[in-house]
């Protein structure tokens, strides 16, 4: 299981990468994709949509189930990863490169963990 140092993590298994420009890339973690199984569809929001910290902004589907993906931050969707929509398997293959959206205008965030804390959290969950 992979826990990149430079990212921050949520209790609901999303990762977030804050940039110098005040934006944030958001995706789901290696643990999440492992738990969900082969992902076949991702329902993404649109550019300009609102994001609310802790609330669902997208959902992913394995063959059997739908899972909500929660936003780590409050802000607005600046960019959507259309390539991911075309190739949902990338969430399984390279979860930390398979970003869902880029958030901007960030005004709030949920409680975030660093890589070590998240690894410990995952261990306690499993």
């Amino acid at each position, binding site marked *: 299981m992979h826990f990149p140092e430079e990212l921050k993590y949520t209790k609901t298994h999303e990762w977030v990468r804050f940039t110098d420009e005040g934006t944030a890339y958001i995706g789901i973690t290696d643990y999440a994709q492992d738990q969900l199984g082969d992902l076949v*569809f991702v*329902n993404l929001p649109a550019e300009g949509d609102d994001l609310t910290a802790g609330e669902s902004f997208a959902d992913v589907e394995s*063959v059997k189930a739908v899972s909500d993906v929660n936003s780590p931050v409050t802000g607005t969707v600046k960019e959507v990863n259309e390539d991911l*929509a*075309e190739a949902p398997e990338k969430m399984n293959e390279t979860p930390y490169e398979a970003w869902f959206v880029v958030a901007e205008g960030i005004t709030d965030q949920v409680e975030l963990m660093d890589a070590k804390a998240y690894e410990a959290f995952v261990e306690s969950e499993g």
Partner: protein
Amino acid sequence: MKAYDLIVIGAGPGGYEAAFEAADLGMKTALVEKEALGGTCLNHGCIPTKSLLHAAGLYRSIREAEAFGIAAEHVSLDVERMQKRKNETVLQLRRGIEMTAGKKKIDLFRGKGTLLGKGKVSVAAENGVEELCAKHILLAPGSCPARPPIPGMDLEGVVTSDELLEAEKKPERLVIIGGGVIGVEFASLYAALGTSVTVIEAMGQLLPSLDREIAQSLKMLMKKRGVQVLTDTRVQEIRRNEDGSLTVDCGEEAMEADLVLVSVGRRPYTEGLFAPGAEPEMDRGRIVTDAFGRTSLEGVYAVGDVTGGIMLAHAATTAGKNAVRHMAGLEACADTRFIPSCVYTEPEIACVGMTQDEAKAAGLAAESRKVLMSANGKTVLSGAERGYIRVVFEKETGKLLGAQLMCERASDIISEFTQALSAGMTREEMAQAVRPHPTFSEAVTEALRA
């Protein structure tokens, strides 16, 4: 001059159903039609397309039946026979309309109807022009395919849905300009028949009038079936090649085709409909009407595609009947607040009411829940593709706001939702009905309780 209580111009689903309603209410009715009874729906739309799609669906099912233990060899396609069967269906339904009109003692006028002024209509037929007068007039002349100003539009082999529906041969390569409902249904049809299909859509998604998730789902499904889908792409030019094939040029990309379908939308058809001075208020080509179907001219109503808005047969039929009932001083017979839309791909798509985005934009605190059909018994046993049902509702009260479906029988299941929306039901109320097992529809209960 022949005098009537009502003259209807246009015998499509808007017009003929209105005429039937009027006759049932005891109104002396005339129905004017310059082409075949049944309008676009019966002759160039709903019925022929769904007939061909049904045949294509059978062809696909048979070829994929091995998984179910059925071995079918030498399965072949006879497009001419497919067309013949489709035409027989259309003819049968057309005769049905004619017979019913006769039984209801509606006077049929075969010719082009023109509104002359208050209470007066002329019908121009081969043997001359006749004038009719009536207390009420209903205009239901429909729509026609929009022809965009793309250089090369008039080349041979560049067709609209009208012509493609009569095609006796299956093209090897088909390029479809316009990924709306008509475009994707033809893409679905020809892909199933084995044609190499490309769909070009100028907007950011297929089915621009429907929600994103539906569009993305369909895009993935089409790609899986070998259809090339280009969105955010505009066609600049169509050119003829030396070997008779066509090149569709989109600037950065260009592709070859044996046939090009232009399905960029339909526009209200009002050519020759109004005599000078008898034109009601218009808005960018469509006839402006109020909630009862009244135009700005006294005694003149308009319904269906010619009024713009949702161009669907059932919307026209409902508007037509309601307009007639309004003329007779009666209540409307159906709730026009909720008009379902269906797309006859495999699996089908059906939507009614608001999407979550639309609800939010309208200032409602809305939520939605989605269930996958992969847990539905009937879906699994029939080997159906990925499908889902999404229910949108008011967060506080659970009141239903809308539903979006992509699954087997979506076009039938959607009516449950339309009914529930019309009755103002909550999720819980709609979930009270016991749905049988095993069915596709029991997934509705799952979705309502998710």
